[in-house]
């Protein structure tokens, strides 16, 4: 085992140990913080009955669908506004306003309009994911090095060549970073939305557990959210690294913050 892994495992180890000891000594009420054993049993039960998996799949499906929709809105719009500053002039004020509204604040409105079905969740994810992808794409296109574009010009490239061979690859790291941030945001926003109104999904499972006074299930749900978020971000980072091998690993990692 390497040093970093050991260092990284220290704190979780102490927290779990504290949890064990505290529960064993009954330092707190079982209904507020369930014991690790109880939580573990619940986790096993939820898994073996397929309950956890089905909720996870519902949530993942929502994130996936919403993320794709957001991408197909934000990416072309980012490219368009980046290439045509005139269009940006029309869109900027309204986008700026929307950007400052936390998507969760729109949930009551969305429920009023779309009920508690799938639509409001997709809308929430689109609202949260749109801006990181849009703004990073725009940024990448706008800040594409004019000097590199001149190289294309000197070779007599048409606009299509300039876009495909210079602008797009030059802004690819920005676009991917926007997608990575968007993915993280959408996951968080979805949990919020599912807590407020849903009939399935991890957020719903947690909310239902609250009504049933099952803190063990709540803890399982929260940890599941954390684990899935970490894993998906890590996977995305791997993909990102494959697409931009010329970038220094540190640079990509920092950009993802």
């Amino acid at each position, binding site marked *: 085992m390497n040093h970093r892994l050991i260092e990284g495992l220290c704190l979780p180890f102490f927290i779990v140990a504290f949890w064990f000891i505290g529960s064993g000594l009954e330092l707190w009420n079982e209904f507020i913080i369930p014991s690790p054993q109880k939580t573990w049993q619940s986790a096993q039960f939820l898994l073996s009955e397929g309950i956890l998996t089905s909720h996870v799949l519902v949530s993942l499906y929502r994130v996936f669908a919403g993320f794709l929709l957001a991408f197909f809105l934000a990416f072309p719009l980012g490219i368009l506004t980046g290439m045509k500053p005139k269009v940006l002039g029309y869109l900027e004020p309204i986008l700026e306003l929307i950007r400052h509204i936390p998507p969760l604040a729109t949930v009551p409105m969305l429920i009023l309009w779309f009920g508690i079905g799938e639509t409001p969740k997709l809308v929430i994810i689109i609202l949260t994911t749109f801006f990181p992808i849009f703004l990073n794409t725009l940024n990448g296109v706008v800040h594409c090095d004019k000097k590199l574009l001149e190289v294309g*010009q000197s070779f007599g490239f048409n606009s299509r060549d300039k876009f495909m061979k210079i602008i797009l690859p030059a802004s690819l790291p920005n676009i991917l970073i926007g997608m990575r941030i968007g993915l993280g945001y959408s996951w968080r926003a979805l949990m919020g939305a599912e807590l407020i109104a849903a009939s399935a999904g991890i957020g719903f499972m947690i909310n239902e557990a609250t009504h049933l006074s099952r803190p063990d299930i709540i803890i399982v749900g929260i940890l599941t959210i954390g684990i899935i978020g970490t894993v998906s971000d890590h996977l995305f980072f791997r993909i990102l690294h494959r697409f931009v091998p*010329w970038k220094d690993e540190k640079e990509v990692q920092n950009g993802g913050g």
Partner: protein
Amino acid sequence: MAGVNIVGLSKQYTIGDHSFYALKDIDLNIDDGSFTTIVGKSGCGKTTLLRLLCGLEKQTEGTIDFTSGKETCKTAKRVGIVFQEPRLMHWLTVKENILFSLCRETKSAEKEELAEKYLQIMGLAKFKDAYPSQISGGMAQRTALGRTLCYDPELILMDEPFAALDYFTRKNLQEEMVNLFLAYGKTIIFVTHNVEEALFLGQKVVIVEGGRIIQIIPVDFPYPRSYTSLKSLGILEEIIQTINYGQKSSSLAG
């Protein structure tokens, strides 16, 4: 291949509400298959001239005609430029950068062949899969030159391409430039602020000062040249004097 005929060329820039000429009344004739160097202080308008020649900038007055044999036309079919900075695409490898100018339809067999050829010429074969961030400044500038050569230009413009390199790398590349010129006989216009470099390379040295050509010196010394023999010609001091104190009635005026 192409020669260039420049008549009354001027370029005006405006910064704020103040306009000035970066180039003024340039008359210059570049022969087909010749090696011309343009030398002058920083800010004298050298880059502006090259940018006008490759169409990155539009002239305020005057004409640029490209000649090819007996034909004359307003735009050359292929003008390649090597910038002062390598300007490589940092997401492409050395090899991919060299092939950058090729259009999508180029067959991959042809691409391989061209890549091999220019990697070989520029001595980059070992670095073909490296990214620009992984190679030295000299290698990067070689790649940029390879990229321009691969475009197969009729006229090659070079804007102080070796200015940022160390003495040894620069010297090396200067010698290679001469070899390339002798081997392929392309028309080359090479801009530099280094008088020695201008003399080492050019068949004709054009001295620019304040946006005007103040002197054109033919250098009939055969290639390959050496720095020492050039010094003995005594032109070096002459050029430095001319740039510093303006044109004198010189016997060398061409």
